[in-house]
């Protein structure tokens, strides 16, 4: 079931590659159909999901598990190499899986206008699709890492070939940044591998779930909780946590490591921006929950204060930067930094409300930012300009577009009734609550974080006012007004579901929370035992 979900796009890739170029107009339909099937499969998984399973650290608590031995090598004195094909989902990965399938559909829908070497484009898109699905399902760290790396490559090419003017620069920056992170991750993976043994077979293992149980660590293993190893006076487990966090923090991204994001977004074509913002950033948040906190709960708890501080800084800094932008896409990119800061803040609070709010914020930001980038793509497609000051009074020219933009902006600035509100509000509430449960996050951080909500309203409304209201006045004059036609049916077809979803989740957050809750409680309990 999950394997089908993961590897279906590969079939599409093969099909696209096999078809001669004369069928190039059918590629998008192939991609669409396969992603559609994926979405249906993800929906089926959602329907079949039993919300009472707690996931996180026990294999029995995962669902749709497929656990096959993959690579078994006897390395003699070093021990036995044990890599499994191990996939399964719990409450944290399920919503992200559904989100990925949904955002992929959006991305393919917005690729309709791409004309440059379609075969390569759709093939890469499908490979990317496979990789992200794999990341959210993988429970073997080796497999996880594999998918993580596979994800980078198509993105590099998608930005580097189909991007804007400075695409090579942006693609390279993105690639090197992320590669830097994954190299660090590999370091920790290897360290963990040599510390952890499978109690059944006695071999070293990459199984994440086994890594979460302190009993499986060799008594003097490098990352063992009981050995108390230190490097430069820092406990090894703290180092492991920090380095692993660093790897995912680049993806989220947190503030000092975020500079790839605006460049990558600005240069990437619209569908890639959608995937970047909609799925890729979530890999960071997901990774922190799935690996950092689950494998190093003690270190995570100790570092929580700093993580929350980074989250708060990201929120405020991202929002302030967004306020200073002239480029619409760049503004949205910075707003992503700000919104993802909430995710980090929520997770680091380690309260059920905070973590669930963080995950919810990821979901919500997933399709809202996708919708935002799509909306930017709409006017960029028309006149190839993204400067906010070059537009004025678009509302008269493009009333439907303005309507969608206004709704999306309000949804993403956290208007109640839309999903972003639930995410942000519960992150704030959870963080505020952290002091009561003793995870060490002071309350002023929640208050500072909430200022981010105010700032996000400021930059979004200001943009709305500058671009859409007032008398129509365009930089490009009459030529632009002729080109700036209102939304087409296809564009509405893509936007409407995402906004509808935002509304539905805003009103019915239990659609996510019910499935999420058991896992979150389990995670929080696992971490809090180290208080």
């Amino acid at each position: 079931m999950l394997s089908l979900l993961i590897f279906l796009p590969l079939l599409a890739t093969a099909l696209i590659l096999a078809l001669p170029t004369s069928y190039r107009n059918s590629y998008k339909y192939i991609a669409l159909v396969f992603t559609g099937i994926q979405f249906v499969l993800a929906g089926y998984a959602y329907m079949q999901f039993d919300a009472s399973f707690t996931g996180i650290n026990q294999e029995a608590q995962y669902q749709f598990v497929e656990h096959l031995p993959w690579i078994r090598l006897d390395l003699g004195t070093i021990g036995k190499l044990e890599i499994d094909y191990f996939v399964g989902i719990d409450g944290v990965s399920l919503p992200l899986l559904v989100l990925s399938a949904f955002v992929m559909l959006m991305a393919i829908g917005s690729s309709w206008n791409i004309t440059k070497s379609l075969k390569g484009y759709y093939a890469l898109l499908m490979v990317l699709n496979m990789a992200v699905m794999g990341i959210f399902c993988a429970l073997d760290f080796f497999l996880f890492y594999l998918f993580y790396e596979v994800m980078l490559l198509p993105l590099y090419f998608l930005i580097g070939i189909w991007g804007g003017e400075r695409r090579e620069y942006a693609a390279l920056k993105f690639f090197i940044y992320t590669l830097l992170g994954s190299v660090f991750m590999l370091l920790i993976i290897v360290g963990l591998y040599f510390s952890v043994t499978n109690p059944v077979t006695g071999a070293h293992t990459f199984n994440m779930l086994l890594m979460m149980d302190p009993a499986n660590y060799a008594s003097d293993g490098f990352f063992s909780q009981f050995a108390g190893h230190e490097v430069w006076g820092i406990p090894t487990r703290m180092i492991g946590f920090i380095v692993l966090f660093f790897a995912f923090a680049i993806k989220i991204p947190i503030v000092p490591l975020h500079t790839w994001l605006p460049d990558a977004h600005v240069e990437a074509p619209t569908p890639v921006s959608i995937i970047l913002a909609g799925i890729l950033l979530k890999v960071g948040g997901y990774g922190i929950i799935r690996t950092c906190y689950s494998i190093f709960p003690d270190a995570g708890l100790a570092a929580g204060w700093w993580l929350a501080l980074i989250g708060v800084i990201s929120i405020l800094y991202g929002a302030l930067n967004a306020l200073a932008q002239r480029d619409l896409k760049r503004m949205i990119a910075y707003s992503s930094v700000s919104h993802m800061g909430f995710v980090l803040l929520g997770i680091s609070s380690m309260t059920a409300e905070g973590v669930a709010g963080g995950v919810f914020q990821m979901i919500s930001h997933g399709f809202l930012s996708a919708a935002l980038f799509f909306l930017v793509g709409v006017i960029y497609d028309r006149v190839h300009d993204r400067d906010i000051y070059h537009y004025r009074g678009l509302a008269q020219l493009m009333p439907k577009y303005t309507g969608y933009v206004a709704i999306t902006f309000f949804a993403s600035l956290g208007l109640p009734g839309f999903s972003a509100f639930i995410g942000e509000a519960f992150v704030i509430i959870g963080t505020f609550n952290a002091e009561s449960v003793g995870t060490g996050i002071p309350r002023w951080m929640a208050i500072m974080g909430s200022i981010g909500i105010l700032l996000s309203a400021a930059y979004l409304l200001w943009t709305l006012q500058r671009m859409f209201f007032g008398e129509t006045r365009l930089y490009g004059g009459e030529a632009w007004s002729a080109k700036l036609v209102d939304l087409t049916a296809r564009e509405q077809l893509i936007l409407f579901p995402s906004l509808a979803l935002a509304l539905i989740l805003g009103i019915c957050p239990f659609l996510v929370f019910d499935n999420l809750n058991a896992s979150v409680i389990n995670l929080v309990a696992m971490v809090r035992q180290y208080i």
Partner: protein
Amino acid sequence: MLAATPHNTLLYAVIATVCLPLLAFIYQAVKGRSAQTGIPSITAIIGSLLLASYIAVQVWNQPPIHFQYSWFTLGENTFYIGILLNNLTALMLVLVPLIAVPVHIYSTAYMQGDAGIHRYWMYLSLFCFAMLGLLVVDNLLLMYIFWELVGFASYLLIGFWYTRESAVQANKKAFLINRIGDLGFLIGIAIIFSEFGTLDLHALFSENGLLSQMDNLSSTWLTAAGIAFFIGAMAKSAQFPLHVWLPDAMEGPTAVSSLIHAATMVAAGVFLLARIFPLFNEHALLVISIVGTLTACTAACFALAQYDIKKILAYSTISQLGYMMVGVGIGAYDTAIFHLLTHAFFKCLLFLAAGAVIHEMQHLKQHVQGDFDPQDLRNMGGLKRWMPKTAILMGLASLALAGFPLTSGFLSKDALIISTFEWASERGLVYQLIPALLILVSILTAFYSARLIFKAFFGEPRLPYFHGVEKHPVHEPGASMLWPMVFLGICCLFPLFSLNPFSSSHSWILSGLAVPHSFAAIHALHLLIPSMLVTGTVLSITLAWKWYAQDKYPLNAQSALMLAAEKQFYINEFNQRIWVNGILGIAKGAYWLDRHIVDGLVQLFAGCVQYISKVSSWVDTHIVDGLVNGLAALTYWLGNIFRQAQNGKIQSYFLAAFFTLFMGLLYLIFS
């Protein structure tokens, strides 16, 4: 879980009351441009009114009724969707549609012919839905949701004429300032949640709620929570210094101003405070009363110097909201709600009447192709000749605002001021400042309302267009505008609220709310205060008559003080310069930081790596590869030289042969 069956009808009635405007909103949103009549909205709001009346009758003076459904579970806490009905809710639930219906009907005429009228009805219904939802919900989270939705609807309506620069500036400002309040609200929610673990109003604030079981109400976090919620209320109810959005919000259509920015939404802050009243401890209450007093005073002063007819009314609203806040702050939130109710009617009427005037002035402007501001008092004067009914209704509302006997305003204002006096006398001399200031404000209120009436309707017309126009465009408004005004005018009179026109204590509202006051009643005040107020009011009206109706204005209108008052003591400029520019400056700085320091470091790092790689690449190309290339080049060069030999010239071959021979000889000799 469903409550006992007899209440089921009530539940459905409540849901229907709230959702009828929502249905109207959805219907019109789907229909789009073709839904211009507004009939769905009007039908919905009338339905809501009827149902609300039914609910009020059922609920009034009954124990609170509470419905609750689980919404979602998060951690160990379950969040509920629920309805909590008590007397306060019932009152407000009737008030909102009661005001809204006349406004809707008025709008059919007022907004006629506007290009965006389909949006107007949509937004108006959305507002009604949000406002009604805000009233009935049973927990703070839902309340917050509707709280923001109300602000959102207000945003949409203020910016209704979105091509006007000032309108879109105003709605942005309104939303942002409300956002500040929302943050307060949100933080308040967070504090409550982390202290009590629930957000349920009933569980928290009912008679046996969590708060009443607390021994020590004076903990810091509780004070913080109180102040946080008050900040929320401050923004929504336009309390100083967060009031700045309300005067600007007058950019919206006047009917909207009357409903949202005078009668209902701005009163939501007072409603919120009343609903969560047990939360407030001494400190928080004192802050509330001080801010309320300050607001009442400053807004009254600002109102004195305004020329825009709507702005005067806006400031007067702010000032009256200050009164209500004082009412809450002294613990007598029943008087505050009472004043809220009476104020809703007369202020709504004032706005509608002002709207009628503006409407006619607009007609005049179009008729004579003149270029003047139709809202400016200085362009009016002597209008009673053409619009006598409007003049009478507006005068009536002004009297109510000024607190003249026989009007509703007299009752509520007196009740409020008397309570304040009673409260202050138990505390000490410094506290007496608050009631004293309130009396002063009351007199000022009378003065500026009189100024408004006299300048607009009395005296001689100030514009030349009024003279010698054949068929005069200025006339009484049409029936669909007039009748709602008449209805509201009736509601401004005392019988609706109390059978005894001179004593508020017999009012059914006060007895219905039954708030236990923390201070003893002083009966002497019930005579003293009203007579003081009436005397002051009459005097100030007389003075205003002399100054404005008879044009014997003794002051310099251009004096610095007057200008400062007109500009609200430059508070907007202050905000602009300090906050807005400050934050924009910080934002620019942050971006600079991002570009040059953060990204700069990355670039520097990248540059270093690049430089190193350039060096190594240089080494590679010039040294390592250089050797190889050099060898290749040498071979090539030699090859070229030898190729020269292969030039087909016999002598070259000879040369080569001899040269080789020569070399061989040399070898032989020297080896």
